[in-house]
């Protein structure tokens, strides 16, 4: 039994450790386990005055953990709240701490990966790329904007994750899963992503085929003719081919990247690319 109470200052310590080192020691066996327990140590130290209790708590928090970095903050907050209950209530089932973690880390990872890595990062990176190309490779405003936005998208949700996770406990994950609003958000992020990828397809891929036919006195340039039908349509075709090769034939993207590079070299030698 402990009378210690977790204060805002303690949670700030956890937040600091989360920002500074959560993903360190990413290892093959237990993934992010050391990050989880290291983040929670300030709280464990305060809650359990006896050394053997602290060792037991650290052992518990050192179990397998794998999630996405931004969303893991919620798990950290929840675990902090549950450790506090465990320290105060002798009847508390300490196994439930890891049970909650195990049940919520995968859905949280799915949300984090699809929103942060799958949508926001490519979206803002794409805007930054366009800003750079539009300025003729002179302005660094795009990269700076990208960096600042992504930093805020990491700092703010992680602050909320730890503090709200602690305050609301496991309720908050439950809420996200039950309302289904997350599905809608993920889906809409996909819509925005596809519109933007479509626009990139037009502007970022470059292919030049120098084929020309002469019929009588007129010279017909193949690419110009195709472009007058649909502007830059070859790049759309190329993206479609790459997509099909990766989804249907399961071709490794790295192989595809090397393949295109070799195709470019061969193409210029033979003369069907320029």
């Amino acid at each position, binding site marked *: 039994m402990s009378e210690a109470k977790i204060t805002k200052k303690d949670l700030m310590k956890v937040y600091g450790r989360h*920002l*500074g*080192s*959560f*993903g*360190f*020691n990413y*290892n*093959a066996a237990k993934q992010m*386990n050391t990050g989880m327990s*290291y983040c929670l140590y300030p709280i464990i*130290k305060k809650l359990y005055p006896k050394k053997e209790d602290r*060792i037991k708590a*650290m052992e518990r928090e*050192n179990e397998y953990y*794998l999630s996405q*970095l931004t969303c893991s903050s919620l798990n950290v907050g929840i675990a902090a709240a549950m450790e506090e209950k465990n320290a105060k209530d002798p009847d508390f089932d300490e196994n439930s701490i890891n049970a909650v973690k195990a049940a919520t880390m995968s859905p949280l990872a799915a949300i984090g*990966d699809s929103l942060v890595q799958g949508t926001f*990062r490519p979206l803002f*990176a*794409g*805007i930054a790329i366009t800003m750079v*190309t539009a300025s003729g490779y002179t302005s*660094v405003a795009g*990269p700076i904007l*990208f*960096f600042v936005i992504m930093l805020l998208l*990491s*700092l703010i949700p992680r602050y909320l994750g730890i503090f709200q996770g602690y305050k609301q406990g496991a309720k908050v994950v439950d809420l996200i899963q*039950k*309302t*289904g*609003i997350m599905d809608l958000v993920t889906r809409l992020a*996909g*819509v*925005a*992503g*596809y*519109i*933007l*990828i*479509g*626009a*990139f397809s037009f502007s*970022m*891929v*470059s292919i030049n085929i120098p084929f020309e036919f002469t019929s009588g006195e007129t010279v017909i340039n193949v690419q110009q003719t195709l472009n007058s039908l649909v502007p830059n349509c070859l790049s759309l075709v190329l*993206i479609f081919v*790459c*997509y099909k090769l*990766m*989804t249907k034939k399961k071709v490794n*993207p790295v192989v*595809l990247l090397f393949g295109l*590079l070799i*195709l*470019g*070299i061969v*193409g210029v030698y033979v003369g069907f*690319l320029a």
Partner: protein
Amino acid sequence: MIQALLCAVLVWIAENDSGQLLSFISRPIVLGPIAGLICGDVQTGLMVGVAVETMFLATVHVGTSFPPDASFSTVIATAFAVAAGSEVGVAVAAALPLSVIGQLAFYLNMSVFNQWGAVMYEKACAKDNEKMMTFWHVGWSLLISFALYGIPTFLAVYVSGDIVQLIIDKIPAQLISGINAGAGMLAAVGLAMLLKAVNGKGLWPYLLIGYFIAAYVGVNMIGVAIFAAAVVAVMFYGQKANYMKDTKEAAVQEKLEEQEFIKVD
């Protein structure tokens, strides 16, 4: 010397970012200009950053599968490009094998060095020794990432300068234009990967909408982004009500089930 050292520190910071702030300083679009600044040519840095970023636009860390390393390769490629006098195509071609080496280093780190660190960390936990915990969790990770990424970067940048110029002088002009033609097409793979990662069943019409807005209306990317935001807003308000209704029904259903459960008890 100082340039190589700064490049090494830059890669070191970037490689650790995914475990810390997650500010995405590790992305080529940010690293390119910084590395360019270090090497004295921001413009080339921006060019390499844009080229490598488009190539790896969709390197998504999902679960335990890790993509080719974009940060390690960007910094070295930028240093090469500056040394070779703005040969961006060649630098991008060099970035590709480097990114695979970076990926291998990551797996090596995860299964050997960090694994060892994690084991030692658990030993420190069993003794309730906070100083040793901090050493094995933070210090060890920083040391190893510097050894695995920082030192190779230093060597590559320090040694490269003259050698790269020498090699590029020997490469026939046609090969260089071939590499440039290939590099122009690499963005297609990045975009296809992104399509796969966003995973949108039935979303392809939006792809065409985006494409033709860019092609025929001719607005820039910010314009397209605003348009996309508007489309998303319209859909959100249209569908929110449905989702909310489903949720309320689900909640009612659950309460009924709970009550039945209590009765059976």
